[in-house]
C-alpha cells in the first residue's frame, strides 16, 4: 500500500463519522428541530458500542447498540423539546453535557482495554480494482452505510411523500398542521433518526477509527457535524463533500506535522476549522439557494392551538 493510498484511506475513516452525524442532523433540522446534542449522542453511541462489543465479543452487536443508544438518548431531547416545549438550544447543550458526563461514567471500567475492530468487508470483483478497490470496496460496513444513508436520505427527502411531509413540517409547521400532518410525530421520528445516525457515528469512532474507549473521544466532531449541516445548506450530497473536505484537511495537517514543516503545530491543527469558516462564508454567498433550502421553522417550538 502506497503512501497516497494510506492517506486517502485515513481521510475516509476520518470523514465517515462526520458524514453520518451530519446526515442525521440534516434530517432532524429539515423537520424544523435544532438538536445541538449531536456531540452528546455521538459519545453515548461510542461508549455503548464499545461496551457491548467487550461484553458480547461481537463488534456488529456493538454497532447496533451504538445506534440504539443514540436513538434512545435523542428521545430524551425530543420529549423535553417537543412534548414539554423546552428551549431547543438550551436542551441540546444540556444533552451534550449530559452525554459527555454519563459516557465517562459508563466507560470507566473500559479505560485502557484493547478494543475489537470492526472488520472490513471486501465486495467481490469490485475490491480487486486497482487503487479504488482497496479504498472504496474493502471497507467496514459503517462506511458503506454512511454512503447508502446519504443516498437514501436524498431519495427520501426529495422523492418520497413522507419526505415531502417532513420538509413541509420544517418549512411551516402551522401550515403542515392545518393540512393534517402530525407535526409532533414527524419531529419525534426525525430526532430519532438523527440520534441513531449520531450513535452510529460514535460506534465508528470506538470500533473503527481508534478501537478503544477514551473519555471524550468524540473530541468536538459533533459540533463539526452541526456546522457541516449549515455548510451543506441542508442538501444531503453536500454533506459528503463537506465531510470529506474536512477529513482531508485534518488528515493532511497531521501528515504536515509528521514531515516537520516549519509551521507551528497549533496553526496546522486549527486548519480544519479555518477551512470550515472559509467555506461557510463562500457558500452563504448565494442567499437565494440558502433561503430556499433553509427550514424556515428551524428551532421554533410548535404548540397546536386547540
Amino acid at each position: 500500500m502506497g503512501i497516497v493510498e494510506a492517506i486517502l484511506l485515513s481521510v475516509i475513516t476520518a470523514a465517515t463519522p462526520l458524514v453520518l452525524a451530519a446526515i442525521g442532523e440534516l434530517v432532524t433540522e429539515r423537520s424544523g428541530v435544532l438538536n445541538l446534542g449531536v456531540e452528546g449522542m455521538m459519545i453515548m453511541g461510542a461508549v455503548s458500542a464499545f461496551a457491548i462489543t467487550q461484553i458480547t465479543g461481537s463488534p456488529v452487536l456493538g454497532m447496533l447498540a451504538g445506534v440504539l443508544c443514540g436513538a434512545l438518548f435523542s428521545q430524551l431531547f425530543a420529549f423535553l423539546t417537543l412534548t414539554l416545549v423546552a428551549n431547543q438550544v438550551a436542551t441540546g447543550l444540556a444533552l451534550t453535557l449530559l452525554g459527555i458526563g454519563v459516557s465517562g461514567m459508563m466507560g470507566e471500567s473500559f479505560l485502557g482495554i484493547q478494543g475489537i475492530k470492526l472488520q472490513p468487508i471486501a465486495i467481490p470483483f469490485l475490491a480487486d480494482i486497482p487503487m479504488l478497490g482497496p479504498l472504496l470496496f474493502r471497507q467496514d460496513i459503517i462506511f458503506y452505510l454512511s454512503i447508502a444513508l446519504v443516498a437514501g436520505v436524498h431519495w427520501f427527502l426529495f422523492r418520497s411523500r413522507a419526505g415531502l411531509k417532513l420538509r413541509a413540517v420544517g418549512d411551516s409547521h402551522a401550515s403542515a398542521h392545518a393540512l393534517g400532518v402530525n407535526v409532533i410525530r414527524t419531529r419525534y421520528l426525525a430526532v430519532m433518526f438523527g440520534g441513531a445516525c449520531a450513535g452510529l457515528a460514535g460506534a465508528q469512532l470506538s470500533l473503527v477509527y481508534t478501537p478503544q474507549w477514551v473519555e471524550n473521544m468524540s473530541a468536538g466532531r459533533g459540533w463539526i457535524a452541526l456546522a457541516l449541516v449549515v455548510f451543506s445548506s441542508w442538501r444531503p450530497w453536500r454533506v459528503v463533500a463537506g465531510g470529506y473536505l474536512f477529513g482531508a484537511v485534518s488528515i493532511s495537517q497531521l501528515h504536515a506535522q509528521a514531515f516537520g514543516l516549519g509551521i507551528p503545530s497549533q496553526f496546522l491543527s486549527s486548519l480544519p476549522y479555518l477551512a470550515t469558516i472559509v467555506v461557510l462564508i463562500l457558500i452563504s454567498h448565494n442567499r437565494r439557494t440558502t433561503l430556499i433550502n433553509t427550514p424556515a421553522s428551524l428551532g421554533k417550538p410548535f404548540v397546536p392551538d386547540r
Partner: protein
Amino acid sequence: MQEGGRGSAEGKEGSVPVEGVAANGHLLAVSNLTKLFGSFAACNGIDLQIEQGEIHALLGENGAGKSTLVKMLFGVLAPTAGEILWQGQSVRIANPAAARKLGIGMVFQHFSLFEALTVAENIALSMDANISLAKVAEEASRLSHAYGLPLDPKAHVADLSVGERQRIEIVRALLQNPRLIILDEPTSVLTPQEADRLFETLYKLKAEGRSVLYISHRLEEVQRICDRATVLRHGKVTGACDPKAETPSSLARMMVGSDVAVVTAEGTSAKGQVQLEARHLTVPARTPFAVSLKNICLKVHAGEVLAIAGVAGNGQGELFDALSGEYPIADENAVQIRQRPVGSRNINARRLMGAGFVPEERHGHAAVSALPLSDNLVLARSRSDAKAFLGGGFLKIIRRDAVASATQRISEAMDVRKSGEDPPAGSLSGGNLQKFIVGRELDRQPSVLVVNQPTWGVDAGAASRIRQALVDLAKAGSAVLVISQDLDEIFEVATEIAVISDGRLSDPYPAKELSREKIGLLMGGMYGKTEGTEAAHAH
C-alpha cells in the same frame, strides 16, 4: 346576471359536475355552535344553513368570529358545544383530513403554503392518497386551465405573487372535488382585475352545483356575487338576508351594530411647501424575497395626504424602510425631509427633524407586545422627546410621571380602550393597539408623517377614527404619506394618489380624478401616459 349560464357551459369541459345532495334539507347546517377560549366566547350559539349550489356570504368585522367558525367547520378547531349537520347527518369533524373526506375544501386567508416547496409539491401535500408527484402536477394543470387559474407546477412558491399563491390554494381545494368550498377573505390581497377573475371561477363552481362559503367584510363584493348572507357580530349571528335586497348601509349596521362615522376629507387646506421628497430613490433588494426600489420620485406638500396604493409585496415595506431611515441609504439626496437631505440618517435623526413613522406590523415592529404601553411610548420617543421623558442629565432616567400622563393623553385623544391603567401592548385588540401606535406619533404633531397600512386588520370603528386623525393632521398643515392596500381607505383620506408596482411608483394623480379601474391597471404595472394603458382600456 349572465354568469351562471356561461359558467355551466364552460364547466362541462373542465371538471365533473357534483352529484346531487340528499334532496331534502341543507348541504350544511350548523346549530348552536359555540367555541370558548377560556371564558371568552369567540363563537356563541351560531346557526347557519348552506344550500347546494349557492354562494353564501359570511359577513363580519375582524374579531366577529368568522375565522373561528370556519376553522371549526374545517376541523382545525374543535367546537366547545353545538352540532354540525352535513347532508342531514350529524358529524364530528376531528381534523382537516376528515373535513376534506366529507367534501369540504378551504382556502385560507393567510395561505397555508410552503414557500420553499414547488407548486406541485404544495398541492401533493394536501392529497390523502398516494399519487405520484407527476400525476398531481398533471391533474393540477388540467384543473387550473379548466377554471381559468393558470399555474406553473414547477415554480417555487417563494417566487410567486400573492394572486398566484391564492390560485394554488384554490386548485388544491378543487382537487378534492369538494361540495363546499370555504374562502376566507379571498380578495383582500387581489387587484380589482384579479378579483374579477376569481369571481368568474366562483360562478363556474356554483354552476356545477358546488356551494361556496364566502367570508368577507367587503359589502360591495358580497352584494355583487353572493346569493345569501349571514352576518356575525361579537360571535353571534345578527342577521341572515339576501344581500342583493339590502343596502350597503343596512348591511354595515348589521356588521357593526351602529352607523360608522364617515371620514370627511373636505376642506383640506391648500398645498404648502414640500415637506417630504424622494429624488430618484433606488434601493437594491436586501434579501432574495425583497423588492428593489427603482427610481422612485415623490413629493408630499404640507397640507396634503399622498396615498400609495398597491398589492402587497410590491415594495411598500422597502419604501417605508427607506423613507423612515430604518435602513438608511447611501445616496444622501435621495430622501429629503423638510428640504434637507437625510438619506443616510437613521430613524431617530429623522424624528428629531419633525418626522413621525408608523410601520406596518403592530406586534414586534411598532410595539413590543409583552411591554406595557408606557414602555412602548418611551422606546419610540426617548430620543425625539428626551427633554420631556428623560431626566437626571447623562443618566437618562425615565420620568415615569411624564410618561404615564403622555400615555393617558394619547389613549384619551385616540379613544384607546384598554383594561387597566397601563396594560401590556399585546393585551389590546388590534384596533386599539393601532390607535395607540398612531396616536403615539400624532401626539408629537409631526410635520411629516409616514404610515404603512394604517388600518390593516382593524375594525371599522377604529379604522374610521385613525383615518380621520390622518386627515385632520394634514388639515393642520402637516405632510402625510399613507401606504395602503385598501382602496376604500385610500379614497377616504387621500388628496393625491400614486400606485406602487414592482418597486416602481407611478405619477401622482389627484384623488378626485382617479377611478378604481385606473388604479387596478396601475397596480398591474401599466403606467399612465403610455400606450399600454390605452390598449388595456380598450379591452
